[in-house]
């Protein structure tokens, strides 16, 4: 069984990470309802042994999950240490400082990056040594702030240097247009450059989409129709508190990202008739090294609690996965070009159902000419908690271009006026050149996607085959 290490950086990264561990333990305890500790377990992927009294498992041994928590101010990490997960983490996994990065990418990347480089590398190496077989690193951070964005990308570079063969999967939260951090465009674009160069796979997530999904679910649950009552604990946004239970403000949104990570690793943790490992995801969905930004969507969002209503049909689930409302970034993949698509199905679904839906949806989706049948599929036998089946769709689609273009525009607006630039340039190691390079890198990335888009309407003739003398 392969292991993954989760590295959570910054306030957003740590809050999402927290939700992730919470949900992972919940899934783990759900699958082991009998309370009998079973060796070949789902949690082996994320921790050596992971039993926790709160989740009514045998308190055989409590050892830490493979995680490294980094934050340059103490507030968030302290909250974790006082919350229900306090028994799960131990103090060596936390790397903190006091004053924070002041929403400044340069401070996060250069100042804290060089100051904490040794400590971070040390902790990473220790964590990696505990793993039998380390397959991937999950980095969770946001792009708009200072620590998550700056120090996070510095950590990414370190991961590439120290562990070049281990897959680096990054879940990045992109700021929405009405973000309250003024310098978020600078931070995001500077971070983008690092992601393009050093990550194997990036799963961009936009706050606005998460808000929309949360609102949709809340609307469903508050609409009061008896037929639309959502079963407790099944909504994709519910943590231990449930959909309407007391939750901290961003918890609902963070639970969505946490579910995303859980579903990606489900095939590595549970049995299935067609396994899909993490390295297979990177292999199949990244046709060109720089184009590794994957649009994700999760369905279903909830299960209705009224059992007399037939459960959402399987086919509906597949259709939803491609609809604009279920994507985790604000984009419409159906109207852009697909380079590749992966479907990870969990639950009691057979290969014939999968095939039927692929055949049904295929004509409605525009695929690039050289990858007309570009589907990667995986079947995992165990569904997530509260559902009978679920689907995660990961697509390498040119619609990410729109997110990047917006980012570039916001960056340009600020940079034109040289607004706030002095905060960055004062930092040791940072120069104006960094800005222009980052902007160029983003532009060329957008250009690559545009070129591929252009092939969408053109009729590309098949290249001529090799001729054999007879």
């Amino acid at each position: 069984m392969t292991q993954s290490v989760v590295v959570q950086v910054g306030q957003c990264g740590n809050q999402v990470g927290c939700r992730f561990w919470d949900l992972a333990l919940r899934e783990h305890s759900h699958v082991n309802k009998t309370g009998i500790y079973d060796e070949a377990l789902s949690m082996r992927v994320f921790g050596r042994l992971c039993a926790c009294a709160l989740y009514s498992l045998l308190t055989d041994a409590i050892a830490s999950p493979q995680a490294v928590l980094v934050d340059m101010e103490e507030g968030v990490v302290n909250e974790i240490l006082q919350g229900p997960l306090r028994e799960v983490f131990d103090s060596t996994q936390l790397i903190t400082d006091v004053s924070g990065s002041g929403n400044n990418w340069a401070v996060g990347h250069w100042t804290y990056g060089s100051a904490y480089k040794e400590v971070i590398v040390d902790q990473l190496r220790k964590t990696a040594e505990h793993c039998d077989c380390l397959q991937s690193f999950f980095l969770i951070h946001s792009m708009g702030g200072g620590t998550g964005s700056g120090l996070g990308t510095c950590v990414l570079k370190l991961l590439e240097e120290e562990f070049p063969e281990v897959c680096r999967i990054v879940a990045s939260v992109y700021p929405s247009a009405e973000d309250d951090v003024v310098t978020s465009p600078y931070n995001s674009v500077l971070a983008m450059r690092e992601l393009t160069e050093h990550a194997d796979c990036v799963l961009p997530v936009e706050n606005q989409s998460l808000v929309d999904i949360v609102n949709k679910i809340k609307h469903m649950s508050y609409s009061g129709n008896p037929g639309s009552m959502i079963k407790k604990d099944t909504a994709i946004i519910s943590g231990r508190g449930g959909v309407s239970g007391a939750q901290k403000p961003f918890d609902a949104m963070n639970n969505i990202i946490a579910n995303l990570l859980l579903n990606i690793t489900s095939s590595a943790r549970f049995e299935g008739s067609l396994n899909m490992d993490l390295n297979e995801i990177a292999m199949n969905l990244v046709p060109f090294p720089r184009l590794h930004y994957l649009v994700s969507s999760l369905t279903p969002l909830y299960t209705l609690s009224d059992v007399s209503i037939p459960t959402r049909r399987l086919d509906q689930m597949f259709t939803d996965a491609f609809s604009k409302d279920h994507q985790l970034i604000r984009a419409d993949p159906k109207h852009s070009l697909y380079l590749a698509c992966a479907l990870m199905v969990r639950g009691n679904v057979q290969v014939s159902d999968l095939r039927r839906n692929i055949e049904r949806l295929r004509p409605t989706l525009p695929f690039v000419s050289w990858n007309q049948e570009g589907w990667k599929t995986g079947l995992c036998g165990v569904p997530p908690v509260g559902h009978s089946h679920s689907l995660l769709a990961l697509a390498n689609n040119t619609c990410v271009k729109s997110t990047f273009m917006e980012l570039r525009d916001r960056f340009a607006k600020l940079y034109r006026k040289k607004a706030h630039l002095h905060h960055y340039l004062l930092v040791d190691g940072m120069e104006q050149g960094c800005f222009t390079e980052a902007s160029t890198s983003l532009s060329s990335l957008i250009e690559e996607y545009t070129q591929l888009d252009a092939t969408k309407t053109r009729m590309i003739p098949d290249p001529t085959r090799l001729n054999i003398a007879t």
Partner: protein
Amino acid sequence: MSIVTVQLGQCGNQVGLEFFEVISNDANDRQRKVYSECTNDRFFSETSNGDLVARAVLIDMEPKVISQSVAKAVKSGKWRYGEHSYFSQKQGSGNNWANGYCVHGPRHEELVVDLVRKEVERCDRLAGIIAMMSVAGGTGSGVGTYATQCLRDAYPNSFILNHLTWPYGTGEVIVQNYNSVLTLSHLYQLSDAILVHENDTVHKICAKLMNIKHISFSDINKVIAHQLGSVLQPALTGDSNGVYNKNPLAELMSGLVCHPEYKLLSLCNIPQVSSSSMVYSVFTWSGLLKHLRQMHISNTKMEEGIDWQVRAPCLQSGGLERTKSHRRKGFNTSLANLLILRGKDVYSAEIGGFQDPSLYTSWLPAVEAFSIWKTPVTFNKYEKSATLVSNSQALLQPLDYMVGKAWNMFASRAYIHQYTKYGISEEDFLDSFTSLEQVISSYSLL
């Protein structure tokens, strides 16, 4: 003589499990002492307390599938896998042929060859080795190809049959066409014969003939296992003089693979019905053989939807030269065929239709090209069962499609960086494309 099976990757291990289930059930069916003994000797070894242990080696780069297979075998109660006959690693090959072939293969070469050697040493006499794998993934295809190479070096005089499962045309793995092209081009040099099953075809059989509503991979694998079993179970052949054939692999190869350029074998089996309809079905040999013949020449793999318009061309008297006009569209020309009949009244079956020279290519006389095995023992509960193993143009179209798709992707160099980082260069790709175009060309000209 015994056959050692090497199961590689998820598909190879899942198919292998179903295969051993089928043959062990078949052998235990009713009192057929000599038949059972022959099966047990061929595929199983007996321990001191009477347990049947499959002569198989299970190889995968991740542990889940192997542990499932081993557990299921034990559950069957009739046979099991050897306690030390498997090898697995923690991390898979990531659907990357280059990773399987260049990294995992060489890294574990010694262990794998050692496991196979132990299994071979348990056999009194080795008939040959069957390697089961898929071509779409990373382990079955990449590690499987490397393993075949090692086994070829270790056992230069034994027969090696590769059983390949081709993926669905509409994709299970995005880079499946690359992996398939690389696998096939390499195996063509290493293997003695390549027996192919396509997921699409078997899926249709499950849907139309067996009436399974929600087809799972287990259903597909059971059909594949049934078809394989009908070939490899004990049979009475022309050379075996009244006893069950000693080496089915040798006879298969000598009958079908008469030229090194033509190694692709396909299977056609009739009847295929769901177990519930079996009780109500009555078959006659003439009906079965007529359908089988038409299935073969029109290249349909099941009894439904046969195109009866496709006819064999009429050869001119003394016609040795097959001119273009005789190559009717849709007609499947064969190089060689092997017909295997099992069941009741087998000796009354009229097989003249298969000896017709117009089915075969002009440069091999029909009497050489056709062989038949007739066994009066029923197989897998079917009262009458007929299988045609054929070296023909049946796989030409799927192969051409696969190479075309791969070439299309290669032209834009998509995903190539994933292969070059493990050591497979663009030249290697071009070599593989060239050798497969050669195979396609040879088969088209039959």
